[in-house]
């Protein structure tokens, strides 16, 4: 059986930047998404074809979701970020499930590895999500109201604020580790099952992983959206 490796394999160095196989996959995902959007955008019509229909469905659903939660004004800002998280994670997860994906080797290391089975990638996404969330909170609330969320003169609320401040860090940890854990575990399960018996038996697990890949993308998107909406609203204490 294969050894379970937490670290991504480094394929080479570009100056000081280590090119890991997950980073390579990340670039491939960007390329795939760019090509697809090129195809869709090049023939956007009022009467949509199949491909445009799919993206219209997702984007329309996403947009109405965001504008329901955040209101039409903020939706215009939140929507692209939130949906990009969704597409990026979804396509990375599905790409990682392609048969034979992890079997290609380069200098005795696997050339490809599912993007989100590397904590670097998920942590980066979680950090981006958190950074943008706080940036929007600052923008919509102003510095004074933003700081009031965490620090007040009321000792009870000061304590609550401190807890929430810690909660902000846990959000990053939970976002990154949830995604990483799910996808990494999926990879391990798939390789383990394939090592036991490579025919037919892995199929239900593949189906499971497709669902997990979709669900995790949706969860990341929804949580980012909810955090953004919650944090860019005024604290309820202010109203009392």
């Amino acid at each position, binding site marked *: 059986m294969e050894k379970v490796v*937490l*670290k*991504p394999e480094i394929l080479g160095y570009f100056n*000081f*930047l*280590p090119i*890991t196989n997950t*980073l390579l996959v*990340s*670039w491939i*995902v*960007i390329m795939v*998404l*760019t090509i697809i*959007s*090129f195809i*869709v*955008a090049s023939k*956007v*019509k*009022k009467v*949509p074809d199949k491909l*445009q229909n799919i*993206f*219209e469905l997702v*984007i*329309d659903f996403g*947009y109405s979701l965001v504008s329901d939660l955040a209101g039409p004004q903020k939706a215009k800002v939140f*929507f*692209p*970020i939130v*949906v*990009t*998280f969704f*597409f*990026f994670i979804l396509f990375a997860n599905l790409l990682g499930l392609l048969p034979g994906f992890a079997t290609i080797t380069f200098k005795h290391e696997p050339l490809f590895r599912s993007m989100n089975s*590397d*904590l*670097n*990638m998920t*942590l*980066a*996404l979680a*950090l*981006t999500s958190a950074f943008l969330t706080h940036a929007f909170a600052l923008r919509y609330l102003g510095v004074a109201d933003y700081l009031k969320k965490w620090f007040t003169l009321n000792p009870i609320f000061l304590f609550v604020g401190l807890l929430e401040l810690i909660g902000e860090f846990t959000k990053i940890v939970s976002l990154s580790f949830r995604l990483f854990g799910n996808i990494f575990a999926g990879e391990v399960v798939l390789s383990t099952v394939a090592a036991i018996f490579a025919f037919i038996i892995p199929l239900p697990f593949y189906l499971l992983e497709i669902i997990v890949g979709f669900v995790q993308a949706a969860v990341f998107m929804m949580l980012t959206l909810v955090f953004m909406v919650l944090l860019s609203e005024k604290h309820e204490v202010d109203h009392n």
Partner: protein
Amino acid sequence: MEILNQFGVQPVLLAAQVVNFLILLFILNKLLYKPILRVLDERKKRIEDSLKNAEEIEKRLNEISEREAEMVLRSAKEGEKIIKEATDYAAQLIEDSRKEYERLINKGMIDARRVGQMEKDMIMQQAKSGLGEIISLALEKVTGKILSQKDQGQIIEKTIKEFKT
């Protein structure tokens, strides 16, 4: 941060992935979201417009059918009026022509009577002159002599008078 080391977390890789995300955000926003949201918006607007138009058309149709009914009613009334006028006129015309015809018949009868009288007179005149001649001839034969003009006239007068009675 031993745990992060175990997972192979490197700040450079984090930065690379953040950059990746931002690039993807930029590309998708430009190529995918904006065109599709624009198309969706256009379609929505178009549907709204179409619905509004449909409503307008229905309203207009109702108006037209109302006006149509009104017009039919009015033209029916007008038609009735015209027919009544025409009937009256026709009755008048018949009456007039009947009068005219009666007048013509009367006149014709009077004329005919006059002509008859005239013809009778003329025949009488001819008969008179013809009779005179016959009488004078007969007298000549009877008397054997030619009567003088004066006698002749007297006898003819007398005979005609007798003849008349």
